[in-house]
């Protein structure tokens, strides 16, 4: 039985290892290439972007935009964008799974997002 469990989690981690999340912040918007989907947030739909701690204490990139509820509330283990009903926002991407440090992501947000970047 334990072998079955180990094989299952090995496959799971194998998938996570072979398809890591990729976050791109650019002149046109923010894009997240996750295992479940590729989410695209052009700047003109984003009202505010913040890096903040969510449940479990993990840092997330959180965006406020109209139509946030179009995202699922739970993304399985795909690591993709998900709706946060309490905040009315989208958790775009967890930061702790990225190789880059938090401050580098914040700098990129400031560089491309200008005044959309909120309290960080």
């Amino acid at each position, binding site marked *: 039985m*334990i*072998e079955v469990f*180990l*094989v299952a*989690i*090995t496959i799971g*981690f*194998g998938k*996570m*290892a*072979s398809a*890591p*999340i*990729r*976050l*791109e*912040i*650019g*002149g*046109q*918007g923010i*894009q997240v290439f996750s295992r479940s*989907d*590729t*989410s*695209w*947030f*052009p*700047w*003109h*739909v984003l*009202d505010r972007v913040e890096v903040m701690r969510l449940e479990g204490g993990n840092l997330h990139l959180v965006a*406020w*935009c*109209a*139509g946030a509820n*179009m*995202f699922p509330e739970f993304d399985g283990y795909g*690591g993709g964008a998900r709706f946060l009903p309490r905040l009315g926002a989208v958790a775009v991407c967890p930061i702790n*799974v*990225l*190789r*880059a440090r938090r401050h*580098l*992501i914040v700098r*990129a947000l400031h*560089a*491309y997002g*200008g*005044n*959309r970047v909120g309290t960080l």
Partner: protein
Amino acid sequence: MHAGRFGGVRTQTVPVFDIVRLQDLISEYRGLRRLELHTPQTRGQRLNQVIAEMLRCWDIEATTSIRSLGEIDVGFSVGGVRYVVEAKWERAKADTGHVAKLQKRVRQRFAGTCGVFLSMSGYSREALADVAHGERLEVLLLDASHFEAMLAGLVPPEEMLSLLLDRASFYGEAHTPLATLIVSTVAPHVTFGIPNQLTGPLLRTAPPGVTGEVLFSVPDSNQLGLVCLDPEHLLVTTQHGIMAVDLASRGAGWVVPVSGCHRSPLVDTDGAVVFTRRNGVGRYRSGELTVMAGGFAGDTCLMRHPDGSTWVFSNGEPGGAIGAAVTRLGGRLGDEERIAHDYPAGCAMNGCWVSSGEVVAVGSSGLSVSVPGRALRWLRVSQANPMGLVRLTPTSVLTGGDALSLRCTSLGSGQGVEVAGLNLHGSVNELAVAADGSVYVAAYCQPTDGRMPFVVARIRTALEVDAAAVAPVGITGSVAAPATGGATTADAAQPTIAAPSAAPALSGQWSAAVPPSANGWQVSRHDRGNRQGEYVAFHGRSGIYWAIVGINVLLILVLACHRRPRDLGPG
């Protein structure tokens, strides 16, 4: 800049001081682009004069080749600001040295003088970085798209300079792409259901069998336009941009987030949307804006020829030097082919092709049928101020006139029959038809609180509609309207939702292949949204996961080895 009137709608067309000369310059621009009768050197010299002449067409006095502390290609003044221009049209992109030369010349001049660098081939990455990270922004960087937009009248020079100065002053950007410069910062806004302003039934008069329903309304817009892609998907022009509306899912999103568009757009086979703005015509696809044509006199509307080509009907200037014209558009600015039209200048409100040879125009002088460049055949329209016009078959059209009446006219006999009378305000309206005979009408309802609300209604008729008139170039299906709802329904008694977008957008993105969301954006897109070289990528950790996988594999192997002797048993 002043706002003109077009059948009661403020179209905000900018008066061109010398439209004839501007059209000549646009024709000459084609030759310059192709290096016809020019060497690269003479083209560069001629460009300075073209810039100055273009500015004079907009009543801006400009001087070329000012020789003092270093030569200035062009100098002019707009709104109290003095501009000095350095223009380059070379094969290579402008580099740091070119821009630095202009910066030096600006510093040699009186404080407040603004430098404008025009490089028709664009800028090297280093040049853009140097200007962006310099101490003080003293120059504006323009490329070919900015110049073409000014030359075409899509973004007149005064507006262009104002927008560029805003970006440079508030955001510190020396170079702002054209699409970003004129992008709309307002979210699309529609309300499904019957608006409060509409009291009473939609249909005032209608023959038996004709029914009508209000689909949605736009709370405030001084522009309106309408295209039917299929019975469930419409494109609607508002003053803030052109939006796609999905009637099935009750959603709306920008397809052209460009403010100042007017009249009904056209959709190309590749999903690009062609639109009119000011005196020019632009093409928008996936966030890229290109200037197609310009120099149109008076008010303009787009027409699709049965062969799929795009044409513009311009009604000319009343009493001016230019009359009405039909213009076949080419791929780029300068490729257009203008043919004079005999409709009295400034009187026609709309035009459309009814067959490969005949174009119909409608306006205060009546309805004319003509082969471009030849004499007109006039038909009487018993309608006041007809404006809406749509082709039903090669021999019949539907027009929309005052207060608001829809009338079908046979082009052969000239006989007309009223299709419906609507309880809608004024005469400004645009029409569209679907293959099932449904007529879509965009028209203003009673204005309130200084707002100009318009409604889009569907009238179900038994009109004979030629399928070729509905989708002449196979547009149906190539553009999908939003699939999800972000707009509101009036019957739910909820206030309309305007998505927050206080800050200016950097770019509009929309792809025809995948339905965008309520905000005109594809929540899920598999191609890269950011342009090459304009983004930072952050990769996820994978080493830790590989390590866990390795440990797990080892554990499985160890467990398997331990279990095998035990499983074999004592025997």
